[in-house]
Protein backbone atom coordinates (compact mmCIF):
# COMPACT_ATOMS: atom_id res chain seq x y z
CA UNK A 1 0.00 0.00 0.00
CA UNK A 2 1.37 3.36 -1.04
CA UNK A 3 1.32 5.89 1.78
CA UNK A 4 0.20 9.52 1.62
CA UNK A 5 3.82 10.44 2.03
CA UNK A 6 4.61 8.66 -1.21
CA UNK A 7 2.09 10.80 -3.10
CA UNK A 8 3.55 13.86 -1.49
CA UNK A 9 6.84 12.93 -3.00
CA UNK A 10 5.15 12.24 -6.35
CA UNK A 11 3.78 15.79 -6.40
CA UNK A 12 7.11 17.00 -5.10
CA UNK A 13 8.97 15.26 -7.90
CA UNK A 14 6.68 16.75 -10.53
CA UNK A 15 7.21 20.25 -9.14
CA UNK A 16 10.94 19.70 -9.11
CA UNK A 17 10.85 18.66 -12.77
CA UNK A 18 11.99 15.15 -12.03
CA UNK A 19 8.74 13.47 -13.06
CA UNK A 20 6.52 14.37 -16.00
CA UNK A 21 2.97 15.55 -15.36
CA UNK A 22 1.92 13.01 -17.97
CA UNK A 23 3.57 10.03 -16.28
CA UNK A 24 1.10 7.18 -15.49
CA UNK A 25 1.91 7.20 -11.76
CA UNK A 26 1.11 10.87 -11.41
CA UNK A 27 -2.02 10.72 -13.61
CA UNK A 28 -3.32 7.93 -11.44
CA UNK A 29 -2.74 10.00 -8.32
CA UNK A 30 -4.44 13.06 -9.86
CA UNK A 31 -7.53 11.12 -10.85
CA UNK A 32 -7.79 9.39 -7.49
CA UNK A 33 -9.60 12.26 -5.80
CA UNK A 34 -10.86 15.76 -6.36
CA UNK A 35 -8.70 16.79 -3.41
CA UNK A 36 -5.49 15.71 -5.12
CA UNK A 37 -6.37 17.62 -8.26
CA UNK A 38 -7.07 20.75 -6.25
CA UNK A 39 -3.77 20.40 -4.46
CA UNK A 40 -1.99 20.22 -7.79
CA UNK A 41 -3.88 23.29 -9.02
CA UNK A 42 -2.92 25.20 -5.90
CA UNK A 43 0.73 24.43 -6.58
CA UNK A 44 0.31 25.63 -10.17
CA UNK A 45 -1.17 28.91 -8.92
CA UNK A 46 1.73 29.32 -6.50
CA UNK A 47 4.16 28.80 -9.35
CA UNK A 48 2.26 31.21 -11.62
CA UNK A 49 2.60 33.81 -8.86
CA UNK A 50 6.33 33.23 -8.78
CA UNK A 51 6.46 33.81 -12.54
CA UNK A 52 4.53 37.02 -12.07
CA UNK A 53 6.92 38.16 -9.31
CA UNK A 54 9.89 37.55 -11.60
CA UNK A 55 8.32 39.54 -14.39
CA UNK A 56 7.50 42.45 -12.12
CA UNK A 57 11.19 43.07 -11.37
CA UNK A 58 12.68 46.10 -13.15
CA UNK A 59 15.93 44.44 -14.20
CA UNK A 60 17.39 47.50 -15.96
CA UNK A 61 16.89 49.76 -12.94
CA UNK A 62 18.36 47.16 -10.62
CA UNK A 63 21.43 46.79 -12.82
CA UNK A 64 21.93 50.56 -12.76
CA UNK A 65 21.67 50.56 -8.96
CA UNK A 66 24.24 47.78 -8.76
CA UNK A 67 26.71 49.71 -10.94
CA UNK A 68 26.15 52.79 -8.75
CA UNK A 69 26.75 50.69 -5.64
CA UNK A 70 29.92 49.19 -7.11
CA UNK A 71 31.32 52.65 -7.91
CA UNK A 72 30.46 53.99 -4.45
CA UNK A 73 32.13 51.00 -2.84
CA UNK A 74 35.27 51.49 -4.94
CA UNK A 75 35.61 54.94 -3.44
CA UNK A 76 34.95 53.66 0.07
CA UNK A 77 37.63 51.01 -0.28
CA UNK A 78 40.13 53.61 -1.48
CA UNK A 79 39.34 55.86 1.51
CA UNK A 80 39.66 52.87 3.83
CA UNK A 81 43.13 52.19 2.46
CA UNK A 82 44.16 55.84 2.96
CA UNK A 83 42.82 55.69 6.50
CA UNK A 84 44.93 52.62 7.17
CA UNK A 85 48.05 54.53 6.12
CA UNK A 86 46.95 57.48 8.23
CA UNK A 87 46.61 55.19 11.23
CA UNK A 88 50.17 53.96 10.75
CA UNK A 89 51.43 57.54 10.61
CA UNK A 90 49.62 58.29 13.85
CA UNK A 91 51.17 55.28 15.51
CA UNK A 92 54.60 56.49 14.44
CA UNK A 93 53.91 59.91 15.93
CA UNK A 94 53.63 58.12 19.21
CA UNK A 95 51.21 57.75 22.04
CA UNK A 96 52.66 60.81 23.80
CA UNK A 97 51.04 63.09 21.27
CA UNK A 98 47.67 61.50 21.91
CA UNK A 99 48.03 62.00 25.65
CA UNK A 100 48.86 65.64 25.03
CA UNK A 101 45.59 66.22 23.21
CA UNK A 102 43.52 64.19 25.62
CA UNK A 103 40.65 66.24 26.96
CA UNK A 104 39.50 65.21 30.41
CA UNK A 105 36.68 67.72 30.69
CA UNK A 106 33.29 66.19 30.33
CA UNK A 107 31.48 67.72 27.36
CA UNK A 108 28.59 70.03 28.13
CA UNK A 109 25.62 69.28 25.88
CA UNK A 110 25.29 72.25 23.62
CA UNK A 111 23.52 73.53 20.58
CA UNK A 112 25.91 75.03 18.10
CA UNK A 113 24.89 77.25 15.22
CA UNK A 114 27.04 77.67 12.19
CA UNK A 115 26.63 79.02 8.71
CA UNK A 116 29.07 79.44 5.87
CA UNK A 117 26.84 81.90 4.08
CA UNK A 118 27.48 85.63 4.32
CA UNK A 119 24.64 87.56 5.90
CA UNK A 120 22.33 89.02 3.29
CA UNK A 121 20.65 92.21 4.39
CA UNK A 122 19.31 92.29 7.91
CA UNK A 123 17.99 88.79 7.91
CA UNK A 124 18.63 87.53 11.38
CA UNK A 125 17.44 84.33 12.90
CA UNK A 126 15.03 84.47 15.76
CA UNK A 127 15.32 82.35 18.84
CA UNK A 128 12.18 82.24 20.92
CA UNK A 129 12.80 81.20 24.50
CA UNK A 130 10.25 79.19 26.47
CA UNK A 131 8.95 82.31 28.23
CA UNK A 132 8.24 83.87 24.86
CA UNK A 133 11.19 86.21 24.86
CA UNK A 134 12.66 86.71 21.38
CA UNK A 135 16.35 86.97 20.70
CA UNK A 136 17.81 87.90 17.33
CA UNK A 137 20.86 85.82 16.55
CA UNK A 138 23.89 86.46 14.50
CA UNK A 139 25.28 83.66 12.43
CA UNK A 140 28.39 83.15 14.43
CA UNK A 141 26.70 83.18 17.81
CA UNK A 142 26.84 79.92 19.59
CA UNK A 143 24.20 78.64 21.87
CA UNK A 144 25.63 76.80 24.77
CA UNK A 145 23.08 74.78 26.55
CA UNK A 146 23.48 73.90 30.15
CA UNK A 147 20.96 71.96 32.12
CA UNK A 148 17.89 74.05 32.79
CA UNK A 149 19.35 77.14 31.21
CA UNK A 150 20.97 78.56 28.17
CA UNK A 151 24.01 80.70 27.48
CA UNK A 152 24.17 82.74 24.34
CA UNK A 153 27.66 83.79 23.42
CA UNK A 154 27.87 86.58 20.90
CA UNK A 155 30.40 86.93 18.19
CA UNK A 156 32.26 89.78 19.77
CA UNK A 157 32.74 87.72 22.90
CA UNK A 158 30.39 89.44 25.31
CA UNK A 159 28.35 86.83 27.02
CA UNK A 160 24.72 87.02 27.83
CA UNK A 161 22.79 84.50 29.83
CA UNK A 162 19.18 83.55 29.44
CA UNK A 163 17.83 81.25 32.06
CA UNK A 164 15.02 78.97 31.03
CA UNK A 165 12.27 77.66 33.24
CA UNK A 166 12.17 73.87 33.20
CA UNK A 167 14.16 71.16 31.49
CA UNK A 168 11.15 70.10 29.46
CA UNK A 169 10.65 73.56 27.97
CA UNK A 170 11.22 74.22 24.31
CA UNK A 171 13.18 76.76 22.32
CA UNK A 172 11.96 77.80 18.88
CA UNK A 173 14.24 78.78 16.03
CA UNK A 174 12.92 80.66 13.02
CA UNK A 175 14.71 81.45 9.78
CA UNK A 176 13.82 84.53 7.72
CA UNK A 177 13.94 84.95 3.94
CA UNK A 178 17.21 84.39 2.18
CA UNK A 179 18.78 82.61 5.12
CA UNK A 180 19.77 79.03 5.72
CA UNK A 181 22.06 77.59 8.32
CA UNK A 182 23.05 74.51 10.18
CA UNK A 183 22.90 73.70 13.86
CA UNK A 184 23.97 70.79 15.98
CA UNK A 185 21.57 69.78 18.73
CA UNK A 186 22.78 68.65 22.13
CA UNK A 187 22.51 64.94 21.16
CA UNK A 188 24.80 65.45 18.15
CA UNK A 189 22.02 65.58 15.57
CA UNK A 190 22.74 68.06 12.80
CA UNK A 191 19.90 70.10 11.36
CA UNK A 192 20.03 72.25 8.25
CA UNK A 193 17.19 74.77 8.01
CA UNK A 194 16.17 76.43 4.77
CA UNK A 195 14.53 79.87 4.58
CA UNK A 196 11.19 80.49 6.33
CA UNK A 197 11.38 77.36 8.44
CA UNK A 198 10.76 76.66 12.09
CA UNK A 199 12.27 74.19 14.53
CA UNK A 200 11.06 73.68 18.09
CA UNK A 201 13.43 71.66 20.18
CA UNK A 202 13.65 70.91 23.91
CA UNK A 203 16.22 72.68 26.03
CA UNK A 204 17.33 69.21 27.08
CA UNK A 205 16.24 65.93 25.51
CA UNK A 206 14.51 63.48 27.83
CA UNK A 207 16.01 60.10 28.74
CA UNK A 208 13.70 57.91 26.63
CA UNK A 209 13.07 59.88 23.46
CA UNK A 210 14.05 62.89 21.40
CA UNK A 211 11.21 64.90 19.92
CA UNK A 212 11.36 68.03 17.80
CA UNK A 213 8.65 69.94 15.95
CA UNK A 214 9.26 71.31 12.49
CA UNK A 215 7.77 73.14 9.55
CA UNK A 216 9.28 74.43 6.31
CA UNK A 217 12.25 72.68 4.75
CA UNK A 218 14.80 70.90 6.87
CA UNK A 219 17.50 68.32 6.37
CA UNK A 220 18.36 66.15 9.37
CA UNK A 221 21.34 63.97 10.11
CA UNK A 222 20.15 62.21 13.21
CA UNK A 223 22.77 60.96 15.67
CA UNK A 224 22.45 57.24 16.39
CA UNK A 225 21.04 56.42 19.79
CA UNK A 226 19.08 53.16 19.84
CA UNK A 227 17.82 53.83 23.37
CA UNK A 228 16.24 57.14 22.48
CA UNK A 229 14.24 57.14 19.23
CA UNK A 230 14.12 60.46 17.42
CA UNK A 231 10.73 61.87 16.39
CA UNK A 232 10.02 64.78 14.08
CA UNK A 233 6.47 66.05 14.37
CA UNK A 234 4.99 67.93 11.41
CA UNK A 235 1.54 69.43 11.32
CA UNK A 236 -0.07 66.23 10.03
CA UNK A 237 2.64 63.61 10.23
CA UNK A 238 5.01 62.05 12.70
CA UNK A 239 8.35 60.63 11.61
CA UNK A 240 10.28 58.06 13.62
CA UNK A 241 14.01 57.87 13.06
CA UNK A 242 16.77 55.56 14.22
CA UNK A 243 19.94 57.27 13.02
CA UNK A 244 19.65 58.44 9.44
CA UNK A 245 19.69 61.42 7.07
CA UNK A 246 16.62 62.72 5.36
CA UNK A 247 14.94 65.81 3.99
CA UNK A 248 11.59 67.27 4.98
CA UNK A 249 9.65 69.72 2.88
CA UNK A 250 6.53 70.76 4.78
CA UNK A 251 5.76 74.41 4.25
CA UNK A 252 2.36 75.10 5.74
CA UNK A 253 1.33 77.31 2.81
CA UNK A 254 1.79 74.33 0.48
CA UNK A 255 -0.60 71.43 0.01
CA UNK A 256 2.08 68.79 0.03
CA UNK A 257 4.48 67.32 2.54
CA UNK A 258 7.56 65.63 1.09
CA UNK A 259 9.89 63.40 3.06
CA UNK A 260 12.96 62.15 1.19
CA UNK A 261 15.24 59.54 2.73
CA UNK A 262 18.92 59.62 1.89
CA UNK A 263 20.36 57.04 4.29
CA UNK A 264 19.08 54.63 6.93
CA UNK A 265 15.46 53.98 7.63
CA UNK A 266 12.54 56.06 8.81
CA UNK A 267 8.92 55.45 9.55
CA UNK A 268 6.15 57.95 8.98
CA UNK A 269 2.84 57.99 10.81
CA UNK A 270 0.18 59.89 8.89
CA UNK A 271 -3.59 59.71 8.85
CA UNK A 272 -3.66 56.55 11.04
CA UNK A 273 -1.32 54.71 8.73
CA UNK A 274 2.32 53.68 8.95
CA UNK A 275 4.80 53.99 6.08
CA UNK A 276 8.34 52.60 6.13
CA UNK A 277 10.77 54.40 3.86
CA UNK A 278 13.94 53.05 2.25
CA UNK A 279 16.84 55.17 0.97
CA UNK A 280 16.23 57.12 -2.25
CA UNK A 281 12.51 56.90 -1.76
CA UNK A 282 10.23 59.87 -1.30
CA UNK A 283 6.94 59.93 0.52
CA UNK A 284 4.50 62.59 -0.58
CA UNK A 285 1.31 63.45 1.21
CA UNK A 286 -1.41 65.79 0.13
CA UNK A 287 -2.55 67.75 3.17
CA UNK A 288 -6.10 68.16 1.90
CA UNK A 289 -6.95 64.73 0.56
CA UNK A 290 -4.50 62.86 2.86
CA UNK A 291 -3.41 60.87 -0.20
CA UNK A 292 0.05 59.38 0.17
CA UNK A 293 2.40 57.96 -2.43
CA UNK A 294 5.96 56.72 -2.31
CA UNK A 295 8.25 57.02 -5.31
CA UNK A 296 11.89 56.43 -6.20
CA UNK A 297 13.98 59.61 -6.47
CA UNK A 298 17.60 60.69 -6.50
CA UNK A 299 17.70 62.00 -2.95
CA UNK A 300 20.58 64.36 -3.71
CA UNK A 301 18.25 66.47 -5.89
CA UNK A 302 16.21 67.22 -2.78
CA UNK A 303 19.04 67.97 -0.37
CA UNK A 304 21.35 70.20 -2.44
CA UNK A 305 19.66 73.31 -1.05
CA UNK A 306 21.72 72.90 2.09
CA UNK A 307 24.86 73.20 -0.03
CA UNK A 308 23.52 76.40 -1.53
CA UNK A 309 21.73 75.15 -4.62
CA UNK A 310 18.22 74.46 -5.76
CA UNK A 311 17.92 71.74 -8.38
CA UNK A 312 14.90 71.66 -10.65
CA UNK A 313 14.38 68.74 -12.98
CA UNK A 314 11.50 69.30 -15.36
CA UNK A 315 9.32 71.00 -12.80
CA UNK A 316 6.38 73.25 -13.66
CA UNK A 317 7.20 76.94 -13.35
CA UNK A 318 4.51 77.47 -10.71
CA UNK A 319 6.37 75.08 -8.35
CA UNK A 320 9.74 76.64 -9.17
CA UNK A 321 8.58 80.15 -8.32
CA UNK A 322 7.13 78.90 -5.02
CA UNK A 323 10.62 77.78 -4.01
CA UNK A 324 12.21 81.03 -5.23
CA UNK A 325 9.61 83.10 -3.40
CA UNK A 326 10.63 81.50 -0.13
CA UNK A 327 14.26 82.33 -0.73
CA UNK A 328 14.13 85.73 -2.41
CA UNK A 329 10.79 86.90 -1.01
CA UNK A 330 9.76 87.96 -4.49
CA UNK A 331 6.30 87.45 -5.95
CA UNK A 332 5.91 86.16 -9.50
CA UNK A 333 2.90 87.18 -11.58
CA UNK A 334 1.98 85.13 -14.64
CA UNK A 335 0.34 87.02 -17.45
CA UNK A 336 -1.26 83.87 -18.81
CA UNK A 337 -2.11 80.84 -16.68
CA UNK A 338 -0.52 78.50 -19.26
CA UNK A 339 2.93 79.89 -18.36
CA UNK A 340 2.53 78.24 -14.97
CA UNK A 341 2.77 74.83 -16.60
CA UNK A 342 5.97 75.60 -18.49
CA UNK A 343 8.63 73.10 -17.53
CA UNK A 344 11.88 74.36 -16.05
CA UNK A 345 15.11 72.40 -15.66
CA UNK A 346 18.15 73.97 -14.12
CA UNK A 347 20.12 74.88 -11.04
CA UNK A 348 19.68 78.08 -9.06
CA UNK A 349 22.62 79.14 -6.92
CA UNK A 350 21.36 80.64 -3.68
CA UNK A 351 24.16 83.21 -3.66
CA UNK A 352 23.11 84.55 -7.04
CA UNK A 353 20.78 87.50 -7.28
CA UNK A 354 17.28 86.74 -8.61
CA UNK A 355 18.24 88.66 -11.77
CA UNK A 356 20.42 85.75 -12.88
CA UNK A 357 17.45 83.41 -12.85
CA UNK A 358 15.26 85.95 -14.65
CA UNK A 359 17.83 86.44 -17.37
CA UNK A 360 18.33 82.70 -17.82
CA UNK A 361 14.59 82.13 -18.07
CA UNK A 362 14.15 84.93 -20.62
CA UNK A 363 16.94 83.59 -22.83
CA UNK A 364 15.92 79.94 -22.80
CA UNK A 365 12.16 80.20 -23.08
CA UNK A 366 9.39 81.96 -24.91
CA UNK A 367 8.61 84.26 -22.01
CA UNK A 368 10.02 87.57 -20.92
CA UNK A 369 10.45 88.65 -17.30
CA UNK A 370 10.22 92.14 -15.98
CA UNK A 371 11.09 93.14 -12.44
CA UNK A 372 8.96 95.82 -10.85
CA UNK A 373 9.60 96.37 -7.15
CA UNK A 374 8.96 93.15 -5.24
CA UNK A 375 7.14 91.59 -8.18
CA UNK A 376 8.30 89.86 -11.33
CA UNK A 377 5.98 89.81 -14.30
CA UNK A 378 6.18 86.88 -16.68
CA UNK A 379 4.76 87.71 -20.09
CA UNK A 380 5.00 86.66 -23.70
CA UNK A 381 8.03 87.83 -25.67
Amino acid at each position, binding site marked *: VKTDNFYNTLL*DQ*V*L*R*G*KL*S*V*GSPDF*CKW*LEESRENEER*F*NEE*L*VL*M*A*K*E*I*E*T*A*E*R*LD*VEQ*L*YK*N*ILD*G*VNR*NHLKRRIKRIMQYAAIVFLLLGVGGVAFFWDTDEPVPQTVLESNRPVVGNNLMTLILPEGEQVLLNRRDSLKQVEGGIDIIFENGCKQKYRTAAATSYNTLKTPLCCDFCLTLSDGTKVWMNALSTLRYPVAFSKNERTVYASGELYLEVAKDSKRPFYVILDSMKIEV*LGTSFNINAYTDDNKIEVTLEKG*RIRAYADHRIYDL*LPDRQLRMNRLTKEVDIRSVKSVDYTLWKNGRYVFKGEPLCDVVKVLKRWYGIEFVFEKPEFEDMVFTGVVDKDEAIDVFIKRLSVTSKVECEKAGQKIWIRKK
Partner: protein
Amino acid sequence: MKSREEFEFEKIFRQYVRELYVFAVKIIEDDEMAEDVVQNFFIKLWFNRKAVRLDTSFRSYCYTAIYHESLNALRSRRRFEGIPDSIAAPVDIHKEMDRMDMRLKLKNAIHSLPERCRQIFVSACVEGYSYEEVALRYNLSVNTVKVQVSKAFRILREKLSEDGPLILFLVHLEKRLFCVNRY
Protein backbone atom coordinates in the same frame (compact mmCIF):
# COMPACT_ATOMS: atom_id res chain seq x y z
CA MET B 1 33.92 51.02 -23.02
CA LYS B 2 32.91 47.92 -21.21
CA SER B 3 35.62 45.67 -19.92
CA ARG B 4 35.50 41.96 -20.60
CA GLU B 5 34.87 41.34 -16.90
CA GLU B 6 31.99 43.77 -16.81
CA PHE B 7 30.47 42.10 -19.85
CA GLU B 8 30.67 38.68 -18.18
CA PHE B 9 29.25 40.12 -14.98
CA GLU B 10 26.26 41.60 -16.76
CA LYS B 11 25.63 38.29 -18.51
CA ILE B 12 25.59 36.44 -15.21
CA PHE B 13 23.41 39.12 -13.65
CA ARG B 14 20.82 38.82 -16.39
CA GLN B 15 20.87 35.05 -16.25
CA TYR B 16 20.20 34.69 -12.54
CA VAL B 17 18.65 37.92 -11.27
CA ARG B 18 14.99 37.02 -11.68
CA GLU B 19 15.08 33.60 -10.06
CA LEU B 20 17.16 34.94 -7.16
CA TYR B 21 14.66 37.76 -6.74
CA VAL B 22 11.77 35.27 -6.62
CA PHE B 23 13.66 33.30 -3.99
CA ALA B 24 14.32 36.41 -1.86
CA VAL B 25 10.68 37.52 -2.11
CA LYS B 26 9.62 34.06 -0.95
CA ILE B 27 11.67 34.40 2.24
CA ILE B 28 11.20 38.10 3.02
CA GLU B 29 7.69 38.60 1.61
CA ASP B 30 8.54 42.23 0.79
CA ASP B 31 9.37 43.26 -2.78
CA GLU B 32 11.51 46.28 -1.96
CA MET B 33 13.58 44.58 0.69
CA ALA B 34 14.08 41.59 -1.61
CA GLU B 35 15.30 43.95 -4.31
CA ASP B 36 17.82 45.42 -1.86
CA VAL B 37 19.03 41.96 -0.92
CA VAL B 38 19.57 40.97 -4.56
CA GLN B 39 21.28 44.30 -5.23
CA ASN B 40 23.69 43.87 -2.31
CA PHE B 41 24.41 40.32 -3.35
CA PHE B 42 25.49 41.38 -6.85
CA ILE B 43 27.60 44.26 -5.54
CA LYS B 44 29.42 41.82 -3.28
CA LEU B 45 29.70 39.36 -6.15
CA TRP B 46 31.50 42.00 -8.21
CA PHE B 47 34.09 42.54 -5.51
CA ASN B 48 34.49 38.80 -4.98
CA ARG B 49 34.61 38.07 -8.70
CA LYS B 50 38.19 36.84 -8.57
CA ALA B 51 37.40 34.32 -5.84
CA VAL B 52 34.11 32.93 -7.15
CA ARG B 53 34.30 30.04 -9.56
CA LEU B 54 31.73 29.75 -12.31
CA ASP B 55 31.33 25.99 -12.13
CA THR B 56 28.33 23.74 -11.59
CA SER B 57 27.98 24.81 -7.96
CA PHE B 58 27.74 28.51 -8.84
CA ARG B 59 23.96 28.56 -8.89
CA SER B 60 23.71 26.90 -5.52
CA TYR B 61 26.32 29.37 -4.19
CA CYS B 62 24.04 32.24 -5.31
CA TYR B 63 20.99 30.69 -3.67
CA THR B 64 22.82 30.08 -0.40
CA ALA B 65 24.13 33.66 -0.31
CA ILE B 66 20.67 35.10 -1.05
CA TYR B 67 19.21 32.88 1.66
CA HIS B 68 21.59 34.23 4.31
CA GLU B 69 21.29 37.85 3.15
CA SER B 70 17.49 37.54 3.28
CA LEU B 71 17.55 36.18 6.81
CA ASN B 72 19.80 39.07 7.86
CA ALA B 73 17.44 41.56 6.25
CA LEU B 74 14.48 39.98 8.06
CA ARG B 75 16.33 40.09 11.35
CA SER B 76 17.27 43.77 11.03
CA ARG B 77 13.70 44.65 10.09
CA ARG B 78 12.40 42.83 13.15
CA ARG B 79 14.89 44.69 15.28
CA PHE B 80 13.76 47.97 13.70
CA GLU B 81 10.12 47.17 14.36
CA GLY B 82 10.85 45.95 17.85
CA ILE B 83 9.52 42.45 17.17
CA PRO B 84 11.45 39.74 19.02
CA ASP B 85 13.59 37.57 16.79
CA SER B 86 12.12 34.22 15.87
CA ILE B 87 13.41 31.30 13.89
CA ALA B 88 12.51 31.51 10.22
CA ALA B 89 10.81 28.56 8.57
CA PRO B 90 13.47 26.28 7.13
CA VAL B 91 13.85 26.56 3.36
CA ASP B 92 15.02 23.69 1.19
CA ILE B 93 17.35 25.51 -1.17
CA HIS B 94 17.65 22.63 -3.64
CA LYS B 95 13.90 22.23 -3.79
CA GLU B 96 13.62 25.91 -4.70
CA MET B 97 16.34 25.62 -7.31
CA ASP B 98 14.65 22.65 -8.95
CA ARG B 99 11.42 24.58 -9.49
CA MET B 100 12.93 26.47 -12.45
CA ASP B 101 12.26 23.79 -15.08
CA MET B 102 8.64 23.44 -14.12
CA ARG B 103 8.26 27.21 -13.88
CA LEU B 104 9.47 27.63 -17.45
CA LYS B 105 7.12 24.91 -18.68
CA LEU B 106 4.24 26.49 -16.84
CA LYS B 107 5.07 29.88 -18.30
CA ASN B 108 4.91 28.46 -21.82
CA ALA B 109 1.68 26.65 -20.97
CA ILE B 110 0.08 29.85 -19.65
CA HIS B 111 1.08 31.67 -22.81
CA SER B 112 -0.54 28.98 -24.93
CA LEU B 113 -3.94 29.52 -23.26
CA PRO B 114 -6.58 31.23 -25.41
CA GLU B 115 -6.42 35.02 -24.85
CA ARG B 116 -9.64 35.49 -22.83
CA CYS B 117 -9.09 32.31 -20.86
CA ARG B 118 -5.57 33.46 -19.90
CA GLN B 119 -6.76 36.91 -18.82
CA ILE B 120 -9.40 35.41 -16.57
CA PHE B 121 -6.99 32.83 -15.12
CA VAL B 122 -4.39 35.52 -14.35
CA SER B 123 -6.88 37.93 -12.75
CA ALA B 124 -8.66 35.32 -10.67
CA CYS B 125 -5.79 33.04 -9.67
CA VAL B 126 -2.55 35.01 -9.90
CA GLU B 127 -3.64 38.55 -9.13
CA GLY B 128 -6.13 37.33 -6.55
CA TYR B 129 -9.31 39.08 -7.67
CA SER B 130 -12.56 37.41 -6.60
CA TYR B 131 -14.72 35.70 -9.22
CA GLU B 132 -17.28 38.49 -8.79
CA GLU B 133 -14.68 41.19 -9.51
CA VAL B 134 -13.37 39.35 -12.55
CA ALA B 135 -16.92 38.87 -13.83
CA LEU B 136 -17.57 42.59 -13.43
CA ARG B 137 -14.32 43.52 -15.13
CA TYR B 138 -14.89 41.40 -18.25
CA ASN B 139 -18.66 41.80 -18.25
CA LEU B 140 -19.34 38.10 -17.79
CA SER B 141 -21.43 36.01 -15.41
CA VAL B 142 -19.73 34.54 -12.36
CA ASN B 143 -20.50 31.11 -13.70
CA THR B 144 -18.69 31.81 -16.98
CA VAL B 145 -15.64 32.92 -15.00
CA LYS B 146 -15.70 29.65 -13.04
CA VAL B 147 -15.98 27.67 -16.27
CA GLN B 148 -13.07 29.58 -17.83
CA VAL B 149 -10.87 29.01 -14.77
CA SER B 150 -11.45 25.27 -14.74
CA LYS B 151 -10.90 25.24 -18.49
CA ALA B 152 -7.58 26.99 -17.91
CA PHE B 153 -6.50 24.37 -15.38
CA ARG B 154 -7.51 21.58 -17.78
CA ILE B 155 -5.51 23.06 -20.67
CA LEU B 156 -2.52 23.76 -18.43
CA ARG B 157 -2.47 20.17 -17.29
CA GLU B 158 -2.72 18.91 -20.87
CA LYS B 159 0.07 21.19 -22.06
CA LEU B 160 2.27 20.28 -19.12
CA SER B 161 1.88 16.56 -19.74
CA GLU B 162 2.11 16.49 -23.53
CA ASP B 163 5.33 18.30 -24.46
CA GLY B 164 7.03 17.94 -21.11
CA PRO B 165 10.08 15.94 -22.15
CA LEU B 166 10.67 17.99 -25.30
CA ILE B 167 10.76 21.32 -23.49
CA LEU B 168 12.88 19.84 -20.77
CA PHE B 169 15.37 18.85 -23.41
CA LEU B 170 15.30 22.30 -25.01
CA VAL B 171 15.81 24.00 -21.69
CA HIS B 172 18.94 22.05 -20.98
CA LEU B 173 20.22 22.70 -24.46
CA GLU B 174 19.57 26.42 -24.07
CA LYS B 175 21.22 26.53 -20.69
CA ARG B 176 24.43 25.11 -22.02
CA LEU B 177 24.69 26.99 -25.31
CA PHE B 178 23.42 30.51 -24.84
CA CYS B 179 23.08 31.19 -21.14
CA VAL B 180 19.89 33.04 -21.92
CA ASN B 181 17.63 34.89 -19.57
CA ARG B 182 15.64 32.20 -17.86
CA TYR B 183 12.25 33.88 -18.19
